[in-house]
């Protein structure tokens, strides 16, 4: 069980949300079912007739994983806007309003 996936699953259960975020991570529903089953067997999730919730150890594990996986470096959670980056100009470059027109 990957820590990142377990962290997401425990967050989902904690917030009573859907599993879409795990699908976005490339998991299929079969993988998610196995992940849930493993988390239940490990005692992190309690599945009762009408309720699914985190156990005490599940809450502790979630807090632990949050600490471990917290992204402090902003470059890892803010993606660079690559299309806005301008290529560096050569010092000898002369700017012409129209690069294809050679006469003024």
């Amino acid at each position: 069980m990957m820590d990142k996936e377990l962290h997401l699953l425990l967050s989902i259960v904690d917030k009573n949300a859907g599993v879409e975020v795990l699908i976005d991570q490339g998991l299929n529903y079969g993988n998610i079912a196995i992940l849930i089953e493993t988390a239940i067997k490990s005692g992190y999730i309690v599945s009762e007739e009408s309720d699914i919730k985190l156990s005490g150890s599940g809450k502790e594990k979630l807090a632990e994983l949050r600490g471990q996986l917290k992204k402090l470096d902003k470059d890892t959670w803010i993606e660079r806007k690559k299309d806005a980056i301008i290529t560096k100009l050569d010092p000898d470059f002369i700017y012409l309003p129209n690069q294809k027109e050679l006469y003024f």
Partner: protein
Amino acid sequence: MNDLDVKSIIKLHDIFSRKDWFQQLGHSQVHENFCKLLACLNTEEKELMLELCDRYDWITFNSYGKYVQKLFEGLVSSGIVPSGKIYLFPLKSKEDRTTSKSGDTLVYMLQGFIHFLQPPFNQAGIYSIIEGLDRTSNLTFTMNKDDAFFVLDDFLGTGDSLLKVLEEIKQLGKVPIEKIVVLALVAHKNALAILDKLGIKYSVALVRDKGISDHYPEPQKTDKISAMQKIELKVTTKKKFQFGYKGSEGLVTMIKTPNNTFPVFWLPYKFGNAKLEPPFPRFQINKL
């Protein structure tokens, strides 16, 4: 597609585990497609689909032998033990004589199971296969007093095709009605009611009711019917198959899923812009 909740995934996983479906060939596609379908539905609709899934019969090719054995045990316990010859006829009408039907598969498989059956059905010498009604009419075919005419199919739904074939057999004038015994792995109660009315003997391994109408008491029934109507409006495009062929409300997949089964289980559907596969797709390979 909408988001699927953890509770539904756990419930579906429990159903698959309890029914041993994770041991079936193709279980991962069925499970995946079932989850995708559930993700399109609201809480009430999901609840209904999970209840139907819990009562669903997924009978794979591997388990046919077990059901064939059950059919013949049923014959012995009902006292239907012919002492003469047994003619095996796959249920198919004259117009289907060149098409391979599920009854043909059953007759073919039976040849491999004969030695596992209870006496006297374990004697290969007592059987003769009749491949089609046209051919029957050309055969010098006379039934003796102790002979029986077994009509075989894997599934009986509305009983429409059964009635058609029984009429064709009657027209041949060679098989007295009391000699006919219908054998089916799965049958809906209305097909059996037709046989009872006609006084035809039968043996069936699994008898099934209508999936919603015959299962829930009022007022639950009305709510469940309304939930299925909403599901079908959402994901089913063909009105012809609403609630299954002629409203059969079937919950079964055999080698092929009969069109009597609720179409949400077998008809490909669109949700938003996504084209999605149902849990038990019903394929038909075209002939050249």
